[in-house]
């Protein structure tokens, strides 16, 4: 691909989104709620687009397309079951929102800590989230580096790509906190979906329309339309991949924190339904992209290269390829900036705020703003190091974050849950997930996330039964939700 064309595409993307970031700067964000939660006044439309941009990273058009290339239709099932899991918002969303308003929670870990009446719980969850999400961000940054290096035929260096992505993420997160993230996310989500949809439609047209497209698959590669298909998606692999992602919407703080932000439940409804439609379209686009790569350039050893290879092949006009490339970079940056913001708020609120006594909201905000570039720098260094460990932690992120799920469900539905149980059910299974990922071990064929979830559920229940629950808080918390669920509807 022509390098000057790439720079033009990048230049336009950067100019427009930085402009939008500055536009979003209205009002003064002088407290944590204003800066990190957009004052809890987010409208439905922006929330839906921003939720989409945050959830969908470079993984979709690179990783999911690669999975389709490698294993066929199972990739669609995996991603759509994740999308079905977002229904959890219909159940947990109003509950997060109601207690968020009542107690003024800024972060999900603060909520869990308060519900179980334990600072240690808030600190432990905040730190474990950082442990998994900083490497996850680093891999997104590295993804941008590899993509630009690949499509420019080594003319743009890996480091240049990483530096561009990290600077953009800092700018979007820093300028106006959640407001600039939400606005730039919205713009970036449009870059992601419009460009890639057009290009996929173009590719399908080139491959003989939908009828011709499917006919080629049905005749030449029928195994790509079934599971287990060519054997890649065995049932155990499929559930090992899918179950951790099913709980993504409540286990990943950069998205569960969004449940505190909508102005009303009606806005949350628009966020949820808007996201589901966006997700459905983007999933199909990514799957068709993977199939197109398979039909156009079969036989690649590394399926993750399918996207760069197709982008730089002659099958796609260069201008369209640049549009997709910008869409992938936007997907990565819009995920990283939200993670930066969420982790900074957790560090300020849950780690600093709990360790230092008598800190004010103002001081926490200062710390939070200070920590944004620090976390970005850490992610940058990890990306530059290109350590295998980072990749392991990143892959482990969905598995590692899933261990909090029993504690979250318990917070809303089980008054008997205890702080000791939360600590045991996050720290021990979290460590187990890390060890299994490091050893690449799958005892009895089950993936690390499944072991993490099973162990954390058992530990949460059993340790709760033998320790004292914060009964007063549990009653107040759950009863308040019950009363208000009826009123707010």
């Amino acid at each position: 691909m022509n390098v000057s064309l790439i720079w033009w595409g990048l230049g336009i993307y950067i100019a427009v989104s930085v402009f939008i970031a500055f536009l979003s700067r209205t009002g003064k964000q002088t407290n944590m709620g204003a800066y990190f939660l957009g004052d809890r006044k987010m409208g439905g439309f922006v929330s839906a687009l921003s939720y989409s941009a945050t959830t969908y990273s470079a993984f979709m058009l690179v990783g999911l397309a690669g999975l389709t290339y490698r294993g066929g239709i199972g990739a669609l099932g995996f991603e759509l079951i994740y999308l079905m899991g977002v229904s959890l918002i219909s159940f947990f969303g109003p509950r997060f929102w109601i207690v968020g308003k009542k107690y003024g929670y800024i972060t999900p870990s603060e909520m869990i800590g308060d519900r179980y009446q334990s600072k240690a719980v808030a600190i432990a969850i905040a730190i474990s989230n950082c442990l998994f999400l900083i490497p996850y961000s680093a891999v997104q940054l590295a993804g941008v580096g590899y993509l630009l290096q690949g499509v420019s035929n080594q003319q743009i260096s890996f480091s240049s790509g990483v530096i561009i992505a990290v600077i953009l993420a800092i700018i979007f997160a820093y300028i106006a906190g959640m407001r600039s993230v939400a606005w730039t996310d919205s713009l970036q989500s449009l870059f992601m979906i419009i460009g890639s949809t057009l290009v996929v439609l173009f590719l399908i047209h080139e491959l003989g329309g939908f009828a011709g497209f499917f006919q080629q698959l049905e005749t030449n590669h029928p195994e790509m339309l079934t599971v287990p298909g060519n054997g890649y998606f065995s049932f155990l692999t499929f559930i090992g991949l899918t179950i951790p992602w099913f709980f993504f919407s409540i286990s990943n703080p950069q998205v569960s924190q969004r449940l505190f932000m909508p102005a009303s439940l009606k806005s949350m409804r628009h966020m949820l339904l808007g996201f589901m439609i966006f997700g459905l379209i983007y999933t199909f686009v990514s799957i068709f992209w993977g199939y197109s790569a398979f039909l156009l350039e079969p036989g690649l050893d590394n399926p993750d290269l399918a996207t760069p290879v197709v982008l730089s092949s002659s099958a796609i006009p260069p201008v369209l390829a640049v549009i997709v490339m910008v869409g992938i970079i936007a997907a990565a940056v819009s995920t990283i900036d939200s993670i930066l913001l969420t982790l900074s708020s957790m560090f300020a609120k849950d780690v600093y705020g709990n360790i230092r006594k008598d800190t004010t909201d103002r001081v926490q905000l200062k710390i939070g703003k200070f920590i944004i570039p620090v976390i970005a720098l850490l992610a940058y260094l990890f990306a530059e190091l290109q350590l295998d460990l980072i990749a392991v932690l990143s892959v482990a992120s969905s598995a590692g974050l899933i261990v909090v799920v029993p504690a979250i469900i318990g917070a809303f539905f089980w008054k008997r849950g205890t702080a000791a149980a939360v600590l045991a059910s996050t720290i021990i299974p979290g460590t187990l997930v890390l060890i299994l990922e490091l050893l690449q071990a799958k005892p009895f064929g089950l993936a690390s996330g499944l072991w993490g979830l099973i162990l954390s559920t058992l530990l949460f229940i059993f340790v709760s039964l033998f320790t004292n629950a914060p009964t007063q808080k549990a009653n107040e918390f759950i009863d308040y939700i019950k009363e208000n669920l009826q009123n707010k509807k």
Partner: protein
Amino acid sequence: MKEKSLAIIIGIIVLAAFIIPFTLLKDVEKWYGSFLFWLILTLIVIACNTILTKDWGNEE
């Protein structure tokens, strides 16, 4: 109760999304096999969420 019954329906759909493609549809090597099946299930789940959130109000 609406919330409970829709939770059960969504639960059954998700179970079906795991099981049916690996059993009944495992030899249907056509676009109307697992591809269409997963699409339809997702559309039903989206419809369930539309019903679940129908009464969510404007109150801030």
